[in-house]
């Protein structure tokens, strides 16, 4: 018999709050808008420069310093990027790994966070201590590599998200979030006969939409931006991800230290184009999730 679940009311749409009236308040509002718009510009303009540079000729990039619109635009760089089989393939691979990886990581994190949010659970503190320990202590690159290798995960896509499946920081934050959810809901569900898993699945998760969205985003970005894992664990060049390319074209000769004298550095416009191709897809993920960040999503659930 299905336990009755208190209805969760629809998210309350934010009523447009009336103008407050005080002069100080209005000044604050204006300043706030101005400041935030400036912040928005400050953060988007350099990216526009990168985009503009990707459409420009190298000679122009050398000649002008910082610009927002190329004088002589060219599609040559993008044509090159998409004509090779490598980039589209890397794009597809990166998207695939990110989607699957994020699902796995979010699932594992939330699954572990819930039991740990129950204070009465025996052994909970010990487990938490062990988790916190791993936040600062780590065996290092080589032993982790050896473990991955011994599990047979070298050259598989699993190696791109399993070694980092649960971020202890995130785990703690999610756990804390669960702890703050009203106890009454869970209690009433249990009284009505729901199992722990049931409570988790039917009560906790739906209430966690903003948190789910947040950490889906964080994990997705983590996988997307990770270049160390593919570098260490992927041998087959047909399995390269986008970040391998970004590192290849943007790494400075300085940091490398010993560069082959025969090395011809990539065209500057190629650097920019690769960055754009590697960044735009993940950038679009956040606006996608933004609707889950509307206020008052949780409200109403306790009232019923």
């Amino acid at each position: 018999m299905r336990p009755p679940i208190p209805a969760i009311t629809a998210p309350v749409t934010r009523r447009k709050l009336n103008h407050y009236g005080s002069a100080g308040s209005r000044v604050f509002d204006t300043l706030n808008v101005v400041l935030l718009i400036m912040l928005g510009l400050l953060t988007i303009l350099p990216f526009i420069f990168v985009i503009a540079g990707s459409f420009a000729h190298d000679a122009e990039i050398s000649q002008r310093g910082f610009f927002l619109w190329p004088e002589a635009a060219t599609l040559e760089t993008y044509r090159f990027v998409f004509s090779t089989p490598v980039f589209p393939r890397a794009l597809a691979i990166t998207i695939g790994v990110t989607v699957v990886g994020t699902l796995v990581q979010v699932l594992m994190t939330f699954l572990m966070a819930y039991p740990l949010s129950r204070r009465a659970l025996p052994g909970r503190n010990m487990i938490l201590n062990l988790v916190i320990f791993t936040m600062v202590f780590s065996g290092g690159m080589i032993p982790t590599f050896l473990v991955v290798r011994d599990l047979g995960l070298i050259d598989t896509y699993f190696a791109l998200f399993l070694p980092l499946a649960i971020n202890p920081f995130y785990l703690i934050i999610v756990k804390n979030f669960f702890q703050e959810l009203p106890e009454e809901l869970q209690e009433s569900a249990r009284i009505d006969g729901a199992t722990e898993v049931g409570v988790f699945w039917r009560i906790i998760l739906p209430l966690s939409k903003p948190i789910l969205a947040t950490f889906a985003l964080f994990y997705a970005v983590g996988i997307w931006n990770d270049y160390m894992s593919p570098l260490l664990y992927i041998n087959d060049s047909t399995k390269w991800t986008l970040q391998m390319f970004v590192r290849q074209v943007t790494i400075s000769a300085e940091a490398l230290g010993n560069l082959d004298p025969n090395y011809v550095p990539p065209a500057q416009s190629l650097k920019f184009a690769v960055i754009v191709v590697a960044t735009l897809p993940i950038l679009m993920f956040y606006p996608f999730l933004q609707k889950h960040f509307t206020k008052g999503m949780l409200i109403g659930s306790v009232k019923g």
Partner: protein
Amino acid sequence: MSTPTISGPRKDAVAPSQRKVSVLTKLNHYKWLYLMLIPGIAYFAVFKYAPMYGITIAFQDYLPFLGYSGSPWVGFKHFQALFSGPDFPRIMGNTLILAALHVLITFPAPIIVALLLNELRIEWVKRAVQSSIYIPHFLGWTIVASLTFLLFGLDPGPITKVASSLLGHQVDFLADPAWFRPLIILQSLWKGTGWGTIIYLAALTGVDPNLYEAARIDGASRWRQMWHITLPAIRSTVVVMAILLAGNLLDTGFEQIYLMMNSLNRSVADVFDTYVYIMGITQGAFSYSTAVGLFKAAIGIVLIFGANWLARKFGQSGLF
């Protein structure tokens, strides 16, 4: 499969004298929770704890080819080298100063911006700003450094020109040690603030808009509304983030510093991570950097538990 019901107080509560049975019953009581823990625990066991033996190379002169069993043991040699090196006090000082600046400036910035965004009434501005401020997070440090050189460089740097005319003398942002820390903090702010607001904005979604309405009706000013409604909503998130920051206090980020460091500002720029890099591209690389990492981690764990204890004293739940 019958569904075990977990109801209120157990009707068949066991007497305390039968302890052994009680433990097992407890485990049984929570068995679904333990089951849910299995994947997570497996993960930590395999990917976090199994490789932990790697820490031991801090006490060896590790050579990858010789492996963990083949590399010679040197005890505390690397730690001695670290602490007795003539540069250590300077490195420690630089790292601590940068850490302090991060705590005072880079940490609160996303909180403030999140609060400001929360106060915005105009939806389209809010959405637009939210969509752009996190973009810098995606640009790697190489690009950030490149942009910094472009804008703050001596010759064509537009910002240098403006600053020089404002201050009346030629400013050399990139070479002058006095400007190094401000530039680093500026870069960190630019790159990290937008991204940092996300977690706080998520926390703010838990606030009932009706509370504001009610407060307004009661005559509360905007400031009081923020103080009594908004801030408490993110307080626990801020505390957790602060504790977590404490654990990584000495991490300054290698790449960012290394790209901005040069011969003229090295005296203020050199921090643990870059120092280790220079020491590390020579013999004893892995062992030395692991030793330093161990040192940082030891301090980090003390700070984490210390900060957590502090948070508990102030009535917050901290990490537990």
